[in-house]
């Protein structure tokens, strides 16, 4: 094929006249017209999608039966915890009846009493307050630190990233529960210190996740476009990248609440909880000595923990299905 034959000139100029020429010259060639594009499938599909993205995700979440079960149970726990002072006024640590009343023996104390004659049901209901408070507050602390560190490391990269990743790795090489015990033992064990300590040992997970998300999203075209519009770093991090990085962080945070509840229970079990507040962990710890004669004292608060953690995990799975970009065809 020589240059002379190819009759070279730019394509696309004055399409109308060219079409006429082509059709006049070779009518059957119109079939093979290489410039005629059908609208692509994506354009077509995106035209029909009119529902707002958020609503779609809520719909997916709410059609998931497991997530609904989890949500209903968790809401029950929250309502009970909030209503605890009205359901069981007075201090749940006070002796109210004969010790070792088994569940069902006395209808006034449906779940019985413990070795000191304290109402087990009142303990569980009040314990829900501590477990949820610590679980949610510790997660918030962990999320705040983790998202900040992770976004700075992932967005800026370079030396900042190296230093912060080393810091994360230092925290991850320490056995986290040992660190937690040490932190709480050094400070006075109370709700505040336990919460902060759990937050301090959980942030590296969030930081690693956030960093990975930021490193991926940093390279997206809309971030380059944002930079080309003169946006500053703070605006790009918090308005452009963070909202897009949120779905996996939200999913992780529901698991973190469950983890924090378990850690608080473990600390209380070891006697490192707040001594003035009843919690599920401390009830299990107190029942441990009499587990052979009165096993219900460990089993009942244990079940409360198990169901709460399971419900949080179910919610997390539901959120994952609804928010994970790999399952969501519209997010890209």
């Amino acid at each position, binding site marked *: *094929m*020589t*240059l*002379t*034959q*190819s*009759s*070279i*000139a*730019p*394509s*696309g*100029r*004055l*399409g109308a*006249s*060219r*079409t006429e*020429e*082509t059709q006049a*010259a*070779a009518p059957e*060639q119109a079939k*093979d*017209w*290489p*410039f*005629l*594009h059908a*609208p*692509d499938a*994506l*354009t077509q599909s*995106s*035209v029909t*999608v*009119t529902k*707002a*993205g958020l609503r779609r995700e809520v719909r997916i979440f709410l059609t998931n039966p497991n997530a609904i079960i989890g949500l209903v149970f968790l809401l029950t726990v929250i309502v009970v915890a909030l209503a605890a002072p009205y359901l069981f006024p007075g201090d749940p640590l006070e002796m109210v009846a004969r010790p070792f009343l088994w569940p069902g023996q006395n209808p006034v104390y449906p779940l019985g009493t413990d070795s000191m004659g304290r109402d087990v049901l009142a303990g569980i209901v009040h314990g829900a307050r501590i477990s949820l408070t610590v679980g949610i507050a510790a997660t918030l602390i962990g999320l705040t630190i983790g998202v900040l560190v992770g976004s700075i490391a992932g967005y800026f990269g370079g030396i900042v990233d190296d230093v912060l990743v080393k810091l994360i790795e230092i925290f991850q090489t320490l056995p986290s529960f040992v660190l937690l015990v040490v932190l709480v033992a050094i400070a006075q064990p109370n709700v505040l210190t336990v919460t902060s300590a759990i937050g301090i040992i959980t942030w590296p997970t969030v930081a690693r996740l956030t960093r990975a998300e930021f490193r991926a999203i940093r390279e*997206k*075209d*809309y971030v*380059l*476009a*944002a*930079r*080309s*519009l*003169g*946006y*500053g770093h703070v*605006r790009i991090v918090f*308005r*452009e990248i963070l*909202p*897009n990085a949120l779905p996996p962080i939200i999913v992780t945070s529901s698991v973190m609440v469950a983890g924090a509840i378990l850690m608080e229970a473990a600390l209380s079990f070891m006697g490192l909880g707040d001594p003035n507040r009843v919690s599920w962990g401390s009830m299990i710890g107190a029942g441990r000595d009499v587990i052979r004669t009165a096993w219900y004292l460990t089993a009942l608060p244990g079940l409360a923990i198990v169901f709460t953690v399971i419900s949080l995990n179910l919610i997390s799975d539901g959120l994952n299905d609804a928010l994970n970009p790999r399952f969501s065809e*519209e*997010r*890209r």
Partner: protein
Amino acid sequence: MSALLDVHDFSVAFGASQPVKGVSFTANPGEMLAIVGESGSGKSLTALGLIGLLPHHAKTGGEIRFDGRNLLGQSERNWRKIRGRDIGMIFQEPMTSLNPVLSVGEQITEVLRIHERIDRKQARQRAVELLDLVNIPEARKRVDDYPHQLSGGMRQRVMIAIGVACNPKLLIADEATTALDVTIQAQILQLLDNLRRDLNMAVILITHDLGIVAQWADRVMVMYAGRKVEEGLPEPVFTKPYHPYTRGLLGASPRAESGHHYRQGPLIEIPGSIVSATGEKGCAFRPRCPSAQSSCGFAVPPLRQISEDRLAACPFTPTSFVSHAHDASLRS
């Protein structure tokens, strides 16, 4: 002559390699300048250099005079004021250049509120006007749409609306129509053409589609391996290309009336690819040039003035332009 943009001997280097090796060009208000070249010719890096978004480890040289001041060496703070306000940019992929979690209106008002003292209400009003300006039907309704609810062409219109929101003096369109199908391409280019006249804005069109250049550009600059190899008005450049690379580019673009179709024979190509940007001597196009002489290997051929408004970096004058003469079709 004081052009709006006067790039003088601009170069970009990454360590030893120098993808942009001293490019000079000017752009005047209201002018549409096209930069063409194949992948790796340095056209996109030049564009990123114009808006100060080259990677940090890139070393730049030369001068970019914009509106009387040298942009190279400006602080990041100054750059942020220039980007989006004085120089706008549109990217190739409308599908990914908009933030998926912010509505179209939010993305337009954001750039307005950064660069101009304007309250929320006024900004929203301007956003609707801008969507109107880029011919989006029912702008008042569309302003609350999210990007995934818009088609590719619509998204690119939104990108243009964001790009021209602050009345920039210069708009860089980096392959802005490459990802769109041909009918939408024509609409978008018509829009850009109208806008540059209405707003007296210089447009730099970076593309590899010669059809677009022929139809829309006021001036065309051909880049090869980081250097400008030819410049002139589109018609003379396409009808009488002086540089063998320009000839090759024109030869490689299929043309309907030639009856040249990939089913009937191989499309014409330029043999080889852009050679490594490091360590070559002489003309960078020599290994692929059909009319290379031994003297081409000694030094980089300088740009020579062929006529007024016409530059080419090849010392040889082609003996004939027969194979490229399509005056009739170009003028029709």
